């Protein structure tokens, strides 16, 4: 099933799928929730031991990792909940007020 939403803003009543069901899975990536943030996590790379605790805890899959290494934070989807900063055993994530 294809799901092309390029022109979704112009869709009329009959163009939307029945019952608002999106006919594909895994589309949360396309929905940017970064704008909901009021606080932003900052990663202090030199303190990080790559223990992956923040990756386990982040409810929005916004800790970017590759090959067992933390790479940074996906600000398109991070909602700024601060869980990563609270859970980090090395104090390697600090929350700061979101820039306007």
């Amino acid at each position, binding site marked *: 099933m294809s799901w092309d939403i390029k022109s979704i803003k112009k*869709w009329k*009543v*009959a163009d939307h799928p*029945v019952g*608002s*069901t999106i*006919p594909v*899975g895994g589309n949360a990536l396309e929905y940017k929730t970064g704008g909901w943030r009021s606080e932003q996590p900052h990663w202090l790379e030199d303190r990080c031991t790559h223990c992956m605790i923040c990756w386990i805890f982040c409810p929005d899959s916004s800790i970017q990792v590759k090959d067992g290494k933390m790479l940074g934070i996906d600000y398109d989807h991070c909602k700024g909940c601060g869980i990563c900063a609270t859970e980090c055993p090395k104090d390697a994530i600090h929350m700061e007020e979101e820039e306007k």
Partner: protein
Amino acid sequence: MPKTVALTGNSACAQAMRQINPDVVAAYPITPQTTIVEEFSTFVAKGLVDTEYVTVESEHSAMSACVGASAAGSRVMTTTSSQGLALMWEVLYIASALRLPIVMHNVNRTLSGPINIHCDHQDSMGARDSGWIQIFCEDAQEAYDTTIQAIRIAEDNRVRLPVMICFDGFIISHAIDRLDLLDDEVVKKFVGDFEPLISLLDTEKPVTVGPFDGLYGYFFEFRRAQELATLGSLPVIAEVGKEFGEVSGRHYGLFEPYKLEDAELAVVVMGSTAGTAKFVVDQLRENGVAAGVLKIRSYRPFPAREIAEALSGVKAIAAMDRSLAPGAIGAPVFQEIRSALYDNSARVPVIDYIYGLGGRDVPPAHIEKVFSHLAQIAKSGKIDQVVNYLGLKE
């Protein structure tokens, strides 16, 4: 061969559910619906159905489980009454918005307080704008027949909406009535196999059910699409009623006109009181009074155009409301009827009769009173009182 039996309305509906053999039933018992789920769970225990019966801790959970099961791709049924329906309220809107063809009995009972377990239509009326199709039944036979038809209506690709089958608590649910049951095979063939539009359990075709719309803003378009599906169900309800007539000999339409063709005085009514009204009409006819009844079957969607046409020749109309809409101009049936008639060229006087709240009995004498009031209005052409109360001590 159809079997003639003596059953309560609830037993008849439990039999219909057994014959339909839904994949999932999630329900919570509440008076006067209890014996439907009681009997149906016995069928489950005896292995007479393949249904997964989910015992839940409340009606909110019952409807939530139904929504989940239906989105997973199963044929789902449930039943409730009164406070139970009220507790389901927020999930009713989810079921209709997701276009899930869940079929539910609502055995009509008033809403507290003071606490009262008897019949009126206030519970269904609270859900009239929830996007569910609502069909009201006159007796046990119609409740049984409508249960079977509801599956076809809900699952029709032009509809895909949940259906609420409404019938009067105790009067229909607990009184033993004579009715005909269809053969199991006939019902099985009539309802056919369920073909879900979506299935959360189909990993080959993943879908996203109930996505968030809050910031994008397509809600208006979805609701309009849902409304169009509701309106589009009118011909489907009529078609299924006709097709059911072909297999059972009992034909159903969107409403039932009774001696309406040449009637001058008409009562519009839903539920078991339609039977009483027909009885009174027969008596009045013997005395030369041109009386008739219009029994509403499909209340949601409301077949406004068809009803306005059926009532176009009468001289005075009383809408019978087994509910109250405090602060409104009359109760829901009246509002609907008067509004539907507004577009007719001739202005027919319409009055409202609120009756039977909390199970207050409606004997034939009360309906006669309504007809004599109508005769007076037809004669004088003047409405003395728009909203009236039947059987109220005042």
